[in-house]
Every structure is written in structure tokens, then in C-alpha cells.
């Protein structure tokens, strides 16, 4: 396959997107599709996947899956690829928050959060590198971490643990997978208006929302703002970038 004429084009490439039924995963899927990519959309929420598919402009395969059941990931990907064609990369945007002060932290909850936010990324990467899944060129993996992997905040230690681990995974895998021409990068979003934030927001009072707004010099973000950065990291425009953690946060971590 020859390289696309435009370094920002994804024409001819195929990607799997997790968390594709909502928020950042959905916005990413819609953008990648508009940029010419074929897609496999993965999420536990089937209705949401259908809705995302209806907003995509070209060939899309749905892969309903509970990503915490890691033993199912490889076979599910093999099956999806049989229909959709081999992949050039994947985006791991499925994730969940865990707001809890140290006082009420629970091992069980931490383990659940880790299984989805963190370990699923490893299992996806392991399956992706299989020669029956990876197209063998222009490989790119993008993991969705958080600004809270980079800076501290109270009542967030379980989530921070799961997201900070992704930065270590990004760096390790970028070295290990470079010989296979697979780049591995990570975006660290600030606060984005999505379903996740609405749920988390109910735990706080109005004062807290105003404070959040102030913490972002460019204001709160939209899911599309993160999708743009992810698309860049998948495209040939970033072909010499690997092992990077890119904050996409309206200036949150600049201060």
C-alpha cells in the first residue's frame, strides 16, 4: 500500500476505537471516518455503538465487548478484522472515573478501574501486534490518559493510578514496538464536557464547576478537541513521534 498523498489523510488505513459509544471515543470515530479511515468500533454499550455508526461516513464494523474480560479481546479482534480488514492501529478511549478520597478507597473498585482503564490497553496491544491483525505498516497506537496522570488532585488517587500507568505503558511499548514500525503515544486530556464529566460533576457543588472552568485558560474542552490530537497521532503527519504524552488540556498543565 502506498503512502497517502496528504500526511494528514487516513485514507486506506483501518483503526479500532474503544469507548466508541460515547464522548471522546465517539468524536474520534466520527473524525477518523471523515478523514478516510475504515473503523472497528468497540464498546460495551451496543445502542451507543449503533448511534456512532450512524454518524460515520464509511465502512464501520461494530465490536460489542466488555473490555474488562481480557481473555476475550484477541478472538474478538480477529473476528472483527476478518470482516473489516487488517488494522493500522487502535485508540483506547474506553475508561471510567473513580472519585474517592483515600479514606473510602476500595481494593475491589481499584481493580475494576485498572482492568478497564489500564490492563485492557495492554491486552489490546498484544492482540494488535498479531500478524493476522496488524497490517504491518504505518502502525500507531494512541492511549487516552488524563491530566491527572501528570498533576495531582484530591479524591482521585485510584483514577490517577490507572491513568499514570498508561504513561509508563506508552514509553515501554514505544521502544518494544518500534522495530515493528508501530508508534505508541498517549494523550492526556483536561476536562471535557462528556457523559463521564456530568456524572462526576453531580458529586460536587456549583462552586466546583466554576473553579474547573478557571483552571483551563482556554475554557473547558469538547470531545472533538481530543479527537483532533488523536487523529494527528495516528496519521503520517506524526510519523517521527513515539513514546510521547501529549497534554490536550486548554492550558491546564501549563500553569
Amino acid at each position, binding site marked *: 500500500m502506498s503512502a497517502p498523498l496528504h500526511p494528514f489523510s487516513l485514507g486506506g488505513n483501518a483503526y479500532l476505537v474503544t469507548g466508541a459509544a460515547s464522548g471522546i471515543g465517539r468524536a474520534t470515530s466520527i473524525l477518523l471516518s471523515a478523514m478516510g479511515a475504515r473503523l472497528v468500533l468497540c464498546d460495551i454499550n451496543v445502542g451507543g455503538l449503533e448511534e456512532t455508526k450512524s454518524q460515520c461516513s464509511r465502512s464501520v464494523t461494530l465490536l460489542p465487548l466488555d473490555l474488562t474480560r481480557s481473555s476475550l479481546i484477541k478472538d474478538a479482534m480477529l473476528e472483527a478484522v476478518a470482516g473489516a480488514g487488517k488494522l493500522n492501529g487502535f485508540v483506547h478511549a474506553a475508561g471510567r472515573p473513580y*472519585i*474517592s*478520597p483515600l*479514606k*473510602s478507597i476500595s481494593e475491589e473498585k481499584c481493580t475494576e478501574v485498572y482492568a478497564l482503564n489500564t490492563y485492557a490497553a495492554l491486552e489490546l496491544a498484544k492482540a494488535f501486534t498479531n500478524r493476522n491483525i496488524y497490517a504491518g505498516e504505518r502502525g500507531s497506537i494512541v492511549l487516552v490518559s488524563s491530566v491527572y496522570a501528570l498533576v495531582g488532585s484530591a*479524591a482521585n488517587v485510584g483514577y490517577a493510578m490507572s491513568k499514570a500507568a498508561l504513561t509508563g505503558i506508552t514509553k515501554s511499548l514505544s521502544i518494544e514496538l518500534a522495530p515493528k514500525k508501530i508508534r505508541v503515544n498517549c494523550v492526556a486530556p483536561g476536562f471535557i464536557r462528556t457523559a463521564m464529566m456530568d456524572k462526576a460533576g*453531580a458529586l460536587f*457543588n456549583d462552586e466546583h464547576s466554576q473553579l474547573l472552568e478557571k483552571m483551563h485558560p482556554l475554557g473547558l474542552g469538547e470531545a472533538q478537541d481530543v479527537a483532533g490530537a488523536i487523529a494527528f497521532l495516528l496519521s503520517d503527519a506524526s510519523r517521527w513521534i513515539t513514546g510521547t504524552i501529549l497534554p490536550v488540556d486548554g492550558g491546564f498543565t501549563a500553569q
Partner: protein
Amino acid sequence: MEKFESGMAELLEVDTVDASDVLEGFEAWDSLTSLSIIAFIDENYGVSVSANDLVAAKTVGGLKDLVLTKAKKA
């Protein structure tokens, strides 16, 4: 429901609590403690309460009533 009182006492960093104790009156009362209480109620009673609910409930007893009412509805 004695578990409710002992859980609240632990989170509010006192030995025992009374139904009439005002939540905001505890020395350990702050936004983190309120989050811990929300998590405690969610995990033990399967009930979601918001930070504003805590303020409106005012006392330990008021909060317990709210949890009982919400648990019945669910």
C-alpha cells in the same frame, strides 16, 4: 443500620455520632469527607446522593432518613 452510625463516625473522625449532630459542625467536615460519605452510602446502600443532598440533610439523622427513603424507592 447501626453500620450507618459507625461508618459515619469513622469518616467524621469521632468515636460516636448522634442523630441530632450537625454535619457541618464536625471538625473533620470538608469537601473530601463529604465525598467519602457519598462513596460510603453508594457502596453500602446502593443509593446515590449528591453534595447538595448532604447540605440539605443537615444532620446525621437527616441524612440517614434520606438514605432510607431513597433505598426504599430503589
